[in-house]
């Protein structure tokens, strides 16, 4: 199935929660969806036998100057088609529903996005830091992040 | 003074007394078992001592072999019971194991 067809199915089912398909090559086409409906949309994407997205390729957080974004790259093993979802959340309240229960691979990816960007995935069973130590402060992949001077008595900058 | 029969008997008597003391005072079931082992060992010393000082009759040795065998059996079964008790009570204090399992 092409991006347009998938988008049409989603649009019919969820209406305004699904944004327009943005397609400007060489970038991959993507769709912006609202954070509230994300869980249902993902469930539909996985369980609709026509769509059958059983494989979450990648989940990335992005820090744009005014807001944070989570990007979901989906793939279907059987149908061999791809799809890209984007969720935009404000910086002061970065809350996205967790889709860990739909694709287990989202578990660690969400923890990573939480660790590095501070995006809070609601409903995640174990949202703790994954790379950095548990007592680390700040989310380093945000553009305004300043590295700490010391950590446990060890100097951090060169 | 050469080492005579009485030396061995006294040695085994002391060992016996110590074993009895351990059996009475110890709370832990495994330590009680260890007391029993001491008692059995003291008995064995007697058997063999008597055997030696009786013109090397072999009967004492046979008896000792059976005692050793019995000790092995006893420890195996007793430890199995102890493990079972531990699984039910989470401790093996013999004084506190006083209710029958229903």
């Amino acid at each position, binding site marked *: 199935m092409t991006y347009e067809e998938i988008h049409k199915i989603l649009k019919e089912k969820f209406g305004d929660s699904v944004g327009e398909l943005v397609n400007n090559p060489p970038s991959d086409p993507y769709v912006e969806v609202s954070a509230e409906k994300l869980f249902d949309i993902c469930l539909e994407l996985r369980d609709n036998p026509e769509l059958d997205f059983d494989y979450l390729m990648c989940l990335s957080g992005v820090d744009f100057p005014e807001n944070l974004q989570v990007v979901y790259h989906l793939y279907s093993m059987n149908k061999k088609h791809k799809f890209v979802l984007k969720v935009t959340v404000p910086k002061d309240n970065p809350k996205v529903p967790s889709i860990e229960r739909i694709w287990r691979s989202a578990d660690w990816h969400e923890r990573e996005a939480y660790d590095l960007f501070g995006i809070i995935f609601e409903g995640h069973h174990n949202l703790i830091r994954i790379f950095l*130590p548990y007592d680390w402060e700040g989310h*380093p992949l945000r553009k305004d*992040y300043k590295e*700490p001077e010391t*950590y*446990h008595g*060890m*100097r*951090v900058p*060169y | 003074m050469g080492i005579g029969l009485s030396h061995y008997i006294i040695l085994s008597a002391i060992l016996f007394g110590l074993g009895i003391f351990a059996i009475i005072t110890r709370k832990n079931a495994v330590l009680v078992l260890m007391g029993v082992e001491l008692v059995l060992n003291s008995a064995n010393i007697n058997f063999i001592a008597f055997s030696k000082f009786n013109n090397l009759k072999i009967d004492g040795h046979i008896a000792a072999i059976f005692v050793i065998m019995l000790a092995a059996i006893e420890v195996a079964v007793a430890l199995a019971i102890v493990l079972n008790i531990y699984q039910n009570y989470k401790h093996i204090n013999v004084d506190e194991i006083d209710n029958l399992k229903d």
Partner: protein
Amino acid sequence: MGLLNRLDNPYETGGIILGTLEDILNWGRSKSDWYLHFGLACCAIEFMSMNASHFDFMRFGIIPRATPRQADFIMITGTVTLKMAERIKVLWEQMAEPKYCISVGSCANSGGPYWQYGYHVLKGVDRIIPVHVYVPGCPPRPEAMEEGMMKLQKMIDQQAIFRKRQRLAEEEKLFELQNKG
């Protein structure tokens, strides 16, 4: 005490027994170095290559040990992150004297490629434990690690156990420093 004092004197003034003894002890130490099996990152792969048949680290009498208690030296092969640094400190403390440390690769020497923006990388392992030999490279060739090892052996060989050859060792260090510039 008098005897001890005399024995304590350097070679030249007659402490021959202790001098020879020290030679033997140093020989044993330098020829039989057991390392702590401790790989961190890319350099660890080259380190494995060095253990493999083509380079055969064991030629130098070096045997891997899994526990720090039995190891004589530790090779920090790879990037030390802040999360890891405390563990390395503990490991170092667990090792039995006499102990040595070789820092292998740019990352362990100074943070390497990550020294600038690596917010989670310790910039040089010498900030937490003493380092005896620095081996440069990213990752160093297995031969380079062996060369570093030989440098360490040379250093151990001339170590002063009974304070005999302190002067010699200092001279050696000075020479090394001058040669670098």
